[in-house]
């Protein structure tokens, strides 16, 4: 298994509910990826701004790492893990 650094903005459909964020689908390079499971989530701070991270599994075999920046409201695809 390898990982690839991507660090590109992506469009994400997510549910924001009771201070929880649940990404459901993202579009990267004009292709849609449906998220079947969030395998882990964590957060850190860049100064005062909180960043939320998600490891997600899509319908395909790969695992993707997404980041939501709460100041810029920007989603990024950080990494892809694949064989």
């Amino acid at each position, binding site marked *: *298994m*390898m*990982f690839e650094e991507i660090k590109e903005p992506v469009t994400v459909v997510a549910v924001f509910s009771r201070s929880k964020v649940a990404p459901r689908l993202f579009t990267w390079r004009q292709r849609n990826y449906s998220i079947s499971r969030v*395998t*882990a*989530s*964590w*957060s*850190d*701070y*860049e*100064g*005062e*701004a909180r960043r939320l*991270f998600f*490891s997600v*599994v899509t319908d395909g*075999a790969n*695992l993707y790492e997404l980041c939501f920046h709460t100041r810029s409201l920007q989603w990024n695809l950080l990494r892809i*893990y694949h*064989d």
Partner: protein
Amino acid sequence: MSCVFTPALSSGTCSGSTMTDCARPERLIFHIDADAFFAAVEQASNPRLRNRPVVVCGIPLEHGVVTAASYEARKFGVKAGIPFFQARALLPHGVFLPVNIPKYLSYSLRLLAIYLQYTPLVEAYSVDEVFLDLTGAPDPPAVLGEKIRRQIFRETGLTVTAGAGPNKLVAKIATETVKPNGLCVIRACELPGRLAPLPVSICPGIGPKTAEVLQAAGITTLGQLAAVPLVKLRSVFGLWGEKLHQAARGINDEPVLPLDRRPPEKSMGHETSFPTPLTSARRLEGVIWILSSKTAFRLREKKMLATGIRVKTRLKVNEKKIETRTFQRQLPVAITSEVQLAPAARELFFTHWAGLPVKGLGVTATGLVSEEAARRQLSLFPEIYPGVNKLEPVLDRLRRKYGEDILVRAANLLAGE
């Protein structure tokens, strides 16, 4: 001593005598250690990494050092501290991942939340180790330990090793005997017999150097160490000899200290290691500035001042030997600014550095005092560095808002030359 193995979750469960053997009420302290924590978190957060050899390394990977290796990777000789290239050679088919501290901290907090369901007396010993004071818990220690371990596995996917004993020392030793994924209970009435056959190196605080000295004297087990007269241990190890004497018997009365009861910090600092040892004085100076800036920022955030400074170096003495040397001194005034801390650290380092390649460097502010306590002293030396008091609050506000790396001093850039 009896050992029972329950393969459903544990790789090993080791429980001593029953409650009837030890009817006397005693303290019940647990030490819980998450197995191969960083690597296990990566495996828990990525289902496809489970049961695969995972190696977590410092960044950048190619120049990093192994921070943690899963037990699958350890079978191939990969362990924390070895360089990436060496680990890659030992384990070409391994999964090598960059260290992700925020992710590990998040899992650490999840573990903490579980521990707090059992007792408010939780001491975070490190990011992956805790002590719990469960004195008076209704369940027998072995049942309680298994309950906690199962809950952790169910809720986080992580396995932990738990040791229980009448104090922190015995609990930690108990953990060491059943790693990974095990549970061991040692009761007070079983001491010091249960400890006697164990190697001295299992005891916290007995490092390779002390173990070497003891081995030269024919002492390899805690039982043998317990038999050495206190006077003799004192004559060789000084005050530390008394600690050894007690440790060998499983004696320790340190309380479990939750965060809110911890004594104020006496020192704080930062250190770093270099994949390729540094010999350039300019680059080392840059590193000193970076470490001092980080330390000074933390000092100010905690409203503390330093009255001393310590510089730690890891020097490559020859191809096989890395030596740690530490230098320290008192400061004439209590300080809180990197403009004061960095020159003091720089002077300390360059006074003692003889040009040996530097593998690691650390700057620590010592003898910390609160801002309030130091105010009177500070007023004796006003404006030693004019402008510092105006600039740093502005820098700090920017760092707080946008992150520590938003602005760096030009001197820090020397580190990258």
